[in-house]
């Protein structure tokens, strides 16, 4: 008699599922795919006057992660800096040609974002800047932290 009357306890999973989907949506929206191109192991210099970069146009800036030994990493892989910058500049010039954007005085209208480790000697960083200048890059954005990171 009692077996017949006992009811199966079924929790209502709908609100739980709703909440989980909301959390998934949140994480999908804040996921940062560009973060993969940043070398987060670098210790950037701390600068009070550093401001977020204002982007003009649709062209992607050239991003250079320079470690303390002057090596450049792209998507986590070490590359030959001269070859890489030359290739990127050539690609950009072709892109500008297709878009019909004139290159005035050989100056490329795209900034170079320099994310260099604070302990890198200046001559190594300067060598890379010179390569960029030789290829026509003129605008440089030096990355820095606005304040010291707490670990």
């Amino acid at each position, binding site marked *: 008699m009692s077996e017949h009357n006992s009811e199966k306890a079924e929790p209502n999973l709908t609100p739980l599922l709703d909440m989980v989907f909301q959390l998934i949506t949140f994480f999908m929206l*804040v996921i940062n795919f560009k*973060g993969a191109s940043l070398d987060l192991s670098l210790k950037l210099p701390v*600068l009070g006057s550093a401001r*977020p970069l204002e982007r003009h146009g649709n062209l992607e800036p050239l991003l250079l992660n320079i470690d303390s030994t002057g090596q450049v990493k792209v998507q986590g892989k070490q590359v030959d800096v001269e070859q890489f910058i030359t290739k990127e500049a050539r690609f950009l010039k072709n892109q500008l040609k297709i878009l019909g954007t004139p290159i005035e005085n050989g100056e490329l209208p795209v900034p170079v974002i320099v994310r260099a480790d604070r302990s890198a000697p*200046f001559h190594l960083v*300067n060598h890379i800047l010179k390569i960029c200048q030789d290829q026509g890059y003129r*605008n440089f*954005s030096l990355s820095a932290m606005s304040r010291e990171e707490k670990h």
Partner: protein
Amino acid sequence: MQRSHSQRRRRRKRDQGSVEMNLAAMLDMAFQLLTFFILTFRPAPIEGQLSLNLPPPVPQTNVEANAKGGEGIDNVLAMETLHLHVVANDRGDVSELKVELNPIVQGRLDEGNIQRLDQKLHSMFAVKQIPFDRIQIAVDGRLRYGELMKIIDVCHRQRLPDGSAMQKISFSEVDVGATSNAK
């Protein structure tokens, strides 16, 4: 009797209409997705940028004149470029910093020295007769990039007579070690 009959009819109607989905499997999957996103979540660091326009270095005509001129603000009149000279030690720290030919910083670039440099540059830019509109920093190649950025930060804080911030900052590499060896 009448009541039990209507109850039975209502229950039958309900049993026919409702479709119960098994949400457990979907919830499992949703939790797996959530776990993936939580584990791979890495907030992007809050980075700022210091924008500089750096054309290839060209010879400066007023460097020699300035070197002959000697020290002091009076001798740098009618100049457009203010020159800083930074010498580093073997560890890459600043060992000496000169504004034109005046040594302003001796030793490490700590808070006190940064303030002294700021005050010096501020006093030079405050003189309306001197039309400085750019700063050129001659940097010892051994200097650490972080130290150079501290100097650039101080330069960037200076205000031009029109109230705008100093934007024209350039730097060139000087091999101080080789120069001193040659001497």
